[in-house]
Structure formats: structure tokens, C-alpha cells
């Protein structure tokens, strides 16, 4: 496997979390697991960036959390999208599309324009 560049994932954490929670409430670990499974292990959120992002997003009102029970009967904190979060997801997704397109354009440029 090629060396990963965690730098590149910087700035997409919030997009990925919002995206994941669109399918319903999940706990932190569940978010990371879902992302890994869905992307064939390509997207790996480290705890060090996942949890700070969750708290930040909760403070901003994009997410709300409640205590729930996990599959194996453990008490866990579940996060769900708020309506503000849904709006945010919309703009983040658009922003990502524009950004990825721009980068792609730079990378695919064969000659100086």
C-alpha cells in the first residue's frame, strides 16, 4: 500500500462526518468504521482528529448527541445531524466537488495555459 498522506484528509473530516451521519445516528467509532468499510479502507479517520471534530461540530450546532446503547450493550454517545448540519452538509458537498474539480484541473493540465 502506498504511503498515506494524512495532510490530504485535513479539511475533509467535517464533510465525511456529516456525510456518514446522514444515514442515521452513530457513535464515534461507528462513524470511523462505516467510512472505512464504504471506502475500502481508503478513508481512515484517526481518533485524534475524529473526536475533536465531533465536539467542534456539536458546539457549532451541526450535530447533537445523546447517550445510547451500542450493539454490544455498552453505553455510548450517539451523534445525529441537526437541521443546521443538513444545510452544512449541502454546502460542504458542493465545496468539495468544486475543490476536487479544481485540483483535478491543475493535476491534469499538460501544458502551461
Amino acid at each position, binding site marked *: 500500500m*502506498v*504511503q*498515506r*498522506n494524512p*495532510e*490530504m*484528509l*485535513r*479539511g*475533509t473530516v*467535517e*464533510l*465525511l462526518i456529516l*456525510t*456518514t451521519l*446522514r*444515514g442515521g445516528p452513530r457513535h464515534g467509532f461507528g462513524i470511523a468504521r462505516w*467510512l472505512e468499510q*464504504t*471506502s*475500502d479502507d*481508503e*478513508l481512515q479517520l484517526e481518533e485524534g482528529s475524529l473526536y475533536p471534530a465531533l465536539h467542534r461540530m456539536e458546539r457549532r450546532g451541526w450535530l447533537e448527541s445523546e447517550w445510547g446503547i451500542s450493539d454490544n450493550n455498552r453505553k455510548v454517545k450517539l451523534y445525529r445531524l441537526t437541521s443546521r448540519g443538513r444545510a*452544512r452538509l449541502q*454546502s*460542504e*458537498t*458542493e*465545496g*468539495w*466537488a*468544486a*475543490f*476536487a*474539480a*479544481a*485540483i*483535478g*484541473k*491543475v*493535476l491534469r*493540465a*499538460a*501544458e*502551461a*495555459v
Partner: protein
Amino acid sequence: MSKPSNLVQGTLDLLILKILDLEPRSGWAIGQRLKQVSNDALQVSDGSLYPALHKLEQQGWISAEWRNTENNRRAKIYSLTPPGRRYLRQEAANWERLSQAITHVVRLTEV
């Protein structure tokens, strides 16, 4: 459009390397090129460009020399080193995979 600078930060090195892959340029020209190609979708501040350039130089991916430009101004011109070229290929491939994975994940839920 959300926090493009945050997004860009992670890919700035990649963009600089790619731009220098085409031809050696000065710092200013690199900044111009970035704005031009991306139609300002990538708002790279000039302030963050120079630290990145100097860091890449000291990592051995790019090298610099002082040259006279067209209007007889002295400018510091950056160019890709051979190891930098290999590094660019690898990082570009990484980006491809990563961005596709993100796009895939994002679309999946939209459906």
C-alpha cells in the same frame, strides 16, 4: 464554498509540485498560475505559499536559483528535482484515490 484554505492546505504541496512539473517558475508565478487554473476556486493566500515553497526546498523536493526574468528582474526560480518528480507522481496517485473515495462516499449517501 466552505473553508477552501483548510482543504487546500493539505494539497498545497501537491499543487506546487505539479505546477513546477510543467516548468520552473518564481513564487509569484506559481501563485498566478494557481489562481488562473482554478478560477479562484482554490484561494491560496500568498502568505502561505512561501513557507510551503521553502519547506519543499529544504526537503529536497524542489531546488531554487536566482535568475533574470523577461523584464530583466532578478527572481528566485524554483524547479522540480528528480526525486521531487517521483514524489509528485506518487502523491498525485494518492490524491486520485483519496478524492475518488471521498466523492464515492459523498455520492453514496446522496442517492
